[in-house]
């Protein structure tokens, strides 16, 4: 398999492989909105006492994916808008939301496979699944054309597979078995950093005999853990059905839900970046107060907190209170404060650059200490081709940018802007500081809308033609 582009961004502040369990919080703030989900159907009322694993809310647009109560506590709905707040937190026995009547009904309707899917959904494991091409949640009742399982996580600072897999290899392979039981001979691609490593050998020993798992090695360059790119590399076509993709923590959640019938209430997050004094992985539950994490790990003030990685993540909202259920890491970097004197002649001597300018071309890779500095002024494209060299999707960002600049949206569509995976590397390397990632994101939405409108238009015309024929 040939990979093109990609870049290994070496940064200071990589989290340790250890996982630290954070102290129990007093209050939990569970956001009703995450990147993919909008838990608009609230199932609890003010003052309710909930048990761990109970439904707090569901997302009606995404197969009723539930927001589970991570701890026992008292529901407060009016404390903070957009959050379900739990106070009087206590650790009780988990209370899986599985209904015997409903289960027996499902067994009659769909058999044992139906039960498994029901459990995955209701025990909070299904939210770890995504469709490789669209990034949306796949239909829990559907059958995929293939499953991609990735143990690597290549964006700087985001929770790594090896930290999560530590001492849980057995659970991982059991989870793979459960996954396989949902399939009908479709392949599972298992992505590993190095298929000859001691770890990979152990995995191979554990899964020996399961011919349906294919071990695939990817280069350790961001973003080759991206499911969209992997699915393309494996030759899986979008039209041939959904490609389920799932990371390490998802496989472990599947194991927990199907082996032990217990809900998945904990998450492993990374806390890393130049402004974290001891970068580490932490084990918390969704809704854990962000302030408490930042007070413990961030040093100083005047920093920027990014939810997930620094290349594709989002800035934490100022009024954000709790960790959301999809968060995989917090990255903390310095805000730019001081303007460097004659800064443009200095980079390269003391810092690494994609273009390997000045001395950095002669030095070995070293870890860079980044800030939120824009590092230059916006300029017209100078056609340096760096973006195309670094692009993992093999499209030509500079060309698409020029089309979009002249409002040629059809040309941009023909240049396959839809293959862009929003990794952000093109914007990262651009010497002219063009916001390519954002432009492509907007263009994709616009193209989708136009296609949808065209489709509705055609449908309407067809109906009219039929009516007039009658």
């Amino acid at each position, binding site marked *: 398999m040939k990979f093109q582009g990609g870049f290994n961004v070496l940064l200071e502040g990589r989290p340790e492989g250890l996982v630290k369990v954070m102290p129990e919080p007093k209050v939990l703030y569970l956001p009703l909105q995450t990147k993919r989900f909008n838990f608009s159907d609230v199932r609890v009322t003010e003052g309710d006492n909930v048990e761990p694993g109970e439904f707090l809310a569901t997302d009606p647009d995404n197969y009723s994916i539930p927001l589970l109560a991570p701890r026992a506590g008292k529901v407060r709905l009016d404390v903070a808008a957009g959050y379900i707040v739990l106070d009087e937190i206590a650790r009780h026995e988990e209370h899986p939301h599985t209904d015997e009547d409903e289960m027996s009904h499902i067994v009659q309707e769909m058999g044992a496979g139906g039960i498994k899917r029901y459990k995955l959904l209701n025990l909070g494991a299904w939210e770890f699944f995504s469709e490789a091409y669209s990034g949306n949640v796949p239909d829990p009742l559907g059958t995929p054309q293939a499953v991609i399982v990735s143990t690597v996580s290549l964006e700087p600072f985001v929770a790594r597979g090896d930290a999560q897999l530590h001492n849980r290899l057995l659970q991982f392979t059991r989870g793979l078995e459960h996954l396989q039981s949902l399939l009908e001979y479709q392949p599972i691609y298992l992505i590993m950093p190095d298929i000859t490593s001691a770890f990979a050998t152990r995995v191979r020993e554990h899964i020996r005999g399961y011919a349906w798992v294919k071990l695939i090695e990817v280069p350790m360059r961001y973003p080759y853990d991206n499911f969209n790119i992997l699915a393309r590399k494996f030759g899986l076509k979008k039209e041939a059905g959904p490609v389920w993709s799932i990371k390490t923590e998802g496989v472990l959640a599947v194991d927990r839900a199907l082996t032990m019938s217990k809900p998945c209430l904990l998450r492993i997050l990374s806390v890393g970046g130049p402004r974290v004094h001891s970068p580490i992985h932490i084990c918390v539950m969704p809704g854990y107060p962000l302030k408490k994490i930042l007070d413990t790990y961030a040093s100083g003030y005047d920093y920027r907190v990014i939810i997930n990685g620094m290349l594709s993540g989002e800035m934490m909202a100022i009024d954000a209170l709790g960790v959301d259920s999809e968060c995989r890491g917090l990255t903390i970097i310095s805000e*730019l404060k001081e303007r*460097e004197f004659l*800064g443009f*002649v200095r980079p390269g001597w003391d810092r690494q650059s994609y273009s390997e300018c000045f001395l950095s071309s002669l030095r070995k890779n070293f870890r860079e200490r980044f800030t939120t*500095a824009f590092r230059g*002024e916006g300029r017209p494209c100078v056609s*340096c081709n760096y973006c195309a060299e670094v692009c993992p999707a093999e499209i030509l960002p500079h060309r698409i940018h020029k089309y979009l600049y002249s409002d040629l949206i059809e040309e941009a569509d023909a240049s396959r802007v839809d293959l862009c995976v929003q990794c952000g590397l093109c914007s*990262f390397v651009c*010497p002219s500081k063009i916001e390519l*990632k954002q432009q492509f994101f907007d263009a994709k939405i616009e193209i989708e809308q136009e296609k949808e409108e065209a489709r509705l238009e055609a449908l309407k015309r067809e109906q009219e033609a039929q009516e007039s024929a009658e």
Partner: protein
Amino acid sequence: MKILRDIFEKVSPSFHEGGKFKAFKPVYEAMENFFFAPAARTVMAPHVRDPIDVKRFMSMVIIGVIPCVLASLYFYGLQIIAMIIVSYAVGGVVEVIFAMVRKEEINEGFLVTGMLFPLILPPTLPLWMVGVGVAFGVFVGKELFGGTGRNLFNPALIGRCFLALAYPAAMSSNWVAAGEAGVGRLMQYVTASSVDAISSATPLVLAKQGSVVEVSHMILGTTSGSVGETSGALIIIGGVFLLFTRVANWRTVVSILLSAGVMAGVLHHSDPGRFAPALWHLFAGGMLFGAFFMATDPVTSPVTNTGKWFYGIIIGVVTISIRNFTGYVEGVMFAILLGNIIAPILDEIVVGFRLRRLRGEG
């Protein structure tokens, strides 16, 4: 630094909305951002950016030609400094006027054009011609197309082309016999009237007359020629620096030199009496300077790497053809301008193939 900071802060209001010198805002911003890295922060992902920017991209070219400039001072005299100053001043004024009219920032591109332009002129060209040439080059070659990044032709070459057609006599004489021994011409200011220094023949002219200059002279630079193109060794040093920093693409350089070398070699082999050897062609005239510094301009060369190979081959072959089969003694300038015209077509073909491959993906 603190003092400079304070000065900038003090004068800042008069350059912004409502200030006395509002029209000169681009000049103020260019100065401020020259001394102090821009204060802008990222507002969206990616939250960190690579330290490379256009200013540094361009300043690397200037570092790359410094050896050539120093060599020209040694071989041809101090008037080179005056030529560079005139070129920067006139080119800068054109750029600033356009930035003010368009209400855009001043682009760093003219820093490179202003430096490269005098280096491709004869060493004793009257200073007013330098000014006219750079003004024409920046205005017609760049600003009319919309500024840096949108130009089709290399502005410095457009300026030179204009001078070569408008003042053919001045552009084909005015050569200086290279200073040798001791301080060279470092203490002289040579003009067209300095009779003892003026020489009429560059190696390419001499070759047309049947006498071939030793390659070793051209490597050292002890021959006459345009300002920056004499010393092959120093051009290669500066050029390799550009290749290392990835500002110039090695594919363009390699394909130009390789194709020119192969073609010259084949010709020489077929008729050694008529055609000069390959190595001689590579070091003569503007071949090296053109390959390393002019043809590699990212804006006017093809963007795609495959396109760059063909672009280089076209330039190499056309240069050798012009030198050997036409009345012109030097062909690099026309070859690169021709390459600039063909570059978008080459890109179009390469992109067409790429899109055909992508069509079935995903």
